[in-house]
């Protein structure tokens, strides 16, 4: 059985990656010499211990072969589900901030809802519907779905996350109250830190061609791509506090506001993760997204340049920033070169649904829920345009 089939067998895994992290993975000098490390990151349903149990049960030999070369892995005689599990538990690293494009949707739900969409689309296409109103069509579609036992699950709508406005107002108030401190903080960062930074002035043409070609070898094979980036944090408490505060801000926004399939306006991200490691000396960033690298990076600049600038300017050699939120990502050519230059190879990458964009996934849930609703003619027309 191949790796893909094993991953499929878990039934709860959306995306996964393995990559090798070494001193020379970082474009800048690391804070201290690093041992060679194997990093695994995954996006899964359910509690983490069940996920770990699933991984070591479906993959025992594969796991052994892969992790045998890692420090502290149980000796052959000692290998069993429990020891493998506790090994993974032991080396688990906490995530600093995490974004989910379609929060709350399990792999099973995503697959079911896509089957439902396809089924309804084929019914729409097979019939003439002459003179029928959208309401009548919606009703007939519902009856067809209800008559099919395969779609029994679709009879109950699935709640989706909605924006937490009270929470957002509370956050805004806190920021307002803290604004004098924040402003002074930004001035301190600007005058005592940003002005002394060394910055990236590379252009894409000056990057290491071999590296970029190797990255491109794995890109645009499917509708999605992945991005793995490792960075060295700028030294000092001020930078660390800045990044921690921004991560808190990001977590609050992600949990309460970015719940409809867009991260800071970017509508193509399935999952994104920031991890501070090595005692906050290094940062890793992973994402799984729809479309090409170029589109993804253009979206970064055009839609969320300020947010990325604020976070990533606390890492070494970022393009020049001003007052934490400006410059940086908006310096297009240098930012693109920095992004490509700090990206590293991902040796293994898995995606459970190559045929679905995050927009498709979000739309499919809306289809499932709106099928159940009593819609007005106008709403029913919009419903029928979702296919």
């Amino acid at each position: 059985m191949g790796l893909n089939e094993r991953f499929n067998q878990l039934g709860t895994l959306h995306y996964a990656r393995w990559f090798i992290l070494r001193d020379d993975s970082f474009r800048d000098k690391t804070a201290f010499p690093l041992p060679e490390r194997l990093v695994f990151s995954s996006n899964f349903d359910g509690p983490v211990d069940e996920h770990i149990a699933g991984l070591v049960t479906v993959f025992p030999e594969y796991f052994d072969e892969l992790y045998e070369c890692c420090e502290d892995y149980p000796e052959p005689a000692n290998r069993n589900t429990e020891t493998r599990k506790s090994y993974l538990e032991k080396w688990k690293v906490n995530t600093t901030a995490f974004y989910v494009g379609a929060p709350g949707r399990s792999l099973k739900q995503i697959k079911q809802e896509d089957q439902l969409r396809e089924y309804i689309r084929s019914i729409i296409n097979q019939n003439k519907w002459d003179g029928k109103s959208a309401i009548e069509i919606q009703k007939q579609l519902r009856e067809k779905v209800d008559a099919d036992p395969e779609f029994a699950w679709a009879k109950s709508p699935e709640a989706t996350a909605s924006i937490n406005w009270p929470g957002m107002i509370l956050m805004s108030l806190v920021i307002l109250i803290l604004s004098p401190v924040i402003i002074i903080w930004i001035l301190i960062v600007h005058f005592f830190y940003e002005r002394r930074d060394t910055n990236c002035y590379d252009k894409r043409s000056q990057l290491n061609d071999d590296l970029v070609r190797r990255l491109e070898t794995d890109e645009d094979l499917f509708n999605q791509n992945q991005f793995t980036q490792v960075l060295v944090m700028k030294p000092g408490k001020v930078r660390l506090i800045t990044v921690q505060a921004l991560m808190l801000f990001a977590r609050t926004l992600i949990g309460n506001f970015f719940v409809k399939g867009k991260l800071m306006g970017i509508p193509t991200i399935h999952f994104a993760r920031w991890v501070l490691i090595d005692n906050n000396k290094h940062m890793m960033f992973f994402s799984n997204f729809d479309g090409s690298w170029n589109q993804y990076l253009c979206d970064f600049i055009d839609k969320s340049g300020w947010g990325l600038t604020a976070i990533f300017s606390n890492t070494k050699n970022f393009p020049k920033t001003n007052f934490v939120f400006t410059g940086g990502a908006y310096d297009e050519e240098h930012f693109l070169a920095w992004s490509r230059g700090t990206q590293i190879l991902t040796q293994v990458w898995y995606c459970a649904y190559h045929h679905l964009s995050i927009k498709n996934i979000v739309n499919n849930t809306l289809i499932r829920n709106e099928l159940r609703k009593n819609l007005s003619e106008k709403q029913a027309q919009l419903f029928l345009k979702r296919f």
Partner: protein
Amino acid sequence: MQELELSEIQGFLVRDYKEMPFSKYFLLQVKAADKAKIFLKSISKKITSVTDKKESSFLNLGFTSAGLAALGLQPNNIQSFIREFREGMVTPHRQRLLGDYDSSDPQNWLWGGPKNEAIHLMLMIFEANEEKMKEHTQQLVEEFYVNGLQQVHILDGETFPDDREHFGFRDSISQPAIVGSGVAGLKLDSIEPGEFVLGYKNEYNVYPDTPLLRENQGNFPMLPNDPDGSGKKDIGRNGTYFVLRQLKEDVDGFWNFLNDKSKNDDGSLNTEESTKLAAKMMGRWPSGAPLVLHPDKDPGGLSDENDFLYTDTDKLGLKCPFGAHTRRANPRDNFEETGPDESLHLTKKHRIMRRVRSYGEKYTASATQHTPVDEVGLLFGCFNADISRQFEFIQYTWANYPKFKQLYADPDPFIGVRENPEPGTVQQFTIPQETHNKYIDGLKSFVTVKGGAYFFFPSLTAVEYLSTL
């Protein structure tokens, strides 16, 4: 407004040369660099610039990366050009981005592919009549011979009758207007020069990546300095990049497909519906009239109407489907899901200056007439400063990518359909209608790539500089 050095910029970027209906593109290989440089020196005086007042015999010139090497530009100086240009149109990754598979596979190309002879430079000439074209060609062919330039391939291009390409549609209606170039345009088409000319700021308000001399060679003092102030000499200033692709159009297949998809219940031909379906796929009627302004029928005649937006007039795609070629390739104020003003601004970062000529029999097809005798097609060309963010972005993200906007499985019906998709892959065209969507299933590919290359079009000074290497 940035002041452009128009007398330094090659004319074809700004002027469409419509007054010169005949054109020839000579794809050449340098056999003897010394002689070729003598030729370059003399030809550099004859290149048509934007401001050139000459009334006939327009001439422009571009180089491939292999061509720059053949002329003796040092490898580390070539290294400072953008990677897309250095690698050329044919790499495994670029093949995926551009969708050049099956019949369009570079292995099958007539020129520019791995099995074809290397192209070093392209000389383009434009003439008012066939007589002049003959004379000019004869004179050039002799010069090529004397100067060690071998003709690898020759492309004959003509302007289209009424500007209508072979499928039957009026073409090149919407074009960007470079701010400061002297060409006026709609606000939505007015674009900062750095999107098209190196050495000026682009829509991000930064300078595009320009090739700087890492190692001084030739008569380098004649080159201008890096606008970013590095002190290095800039070969790129007032230059641009040109994308050329020979696209064969299967006119008969196209109209047969549409006629079949739109036939009456009794199986008879429904010309009106067939033409309408073609227009839905294009986003404009054969006359050029845009669907958002003329949703129900072609007003006829010839139209250059271009002052329209999508958000207020057609937010749901009822008039012009989201998947229509012109709506994808230039989404105007309806880019993804952003608001209209921001959309207009974002779209400006992905525009190209199209320079398209037809080849083959002069033939304008329609639902009832679609069997040209010869192979017909177009010589698609476009200028841009950042090949990856402009041409390649449009071809991949907007044309080939089936998940454009909220769509599920809709490639661009003209230039994005795979001939032999992976088993099980749906390729459809979604037509939003008042109550429910209509789907055209089983899209077929009617455009085949027969050749292609990326060229650098230097400033007039930089062409002369190359002759001093």
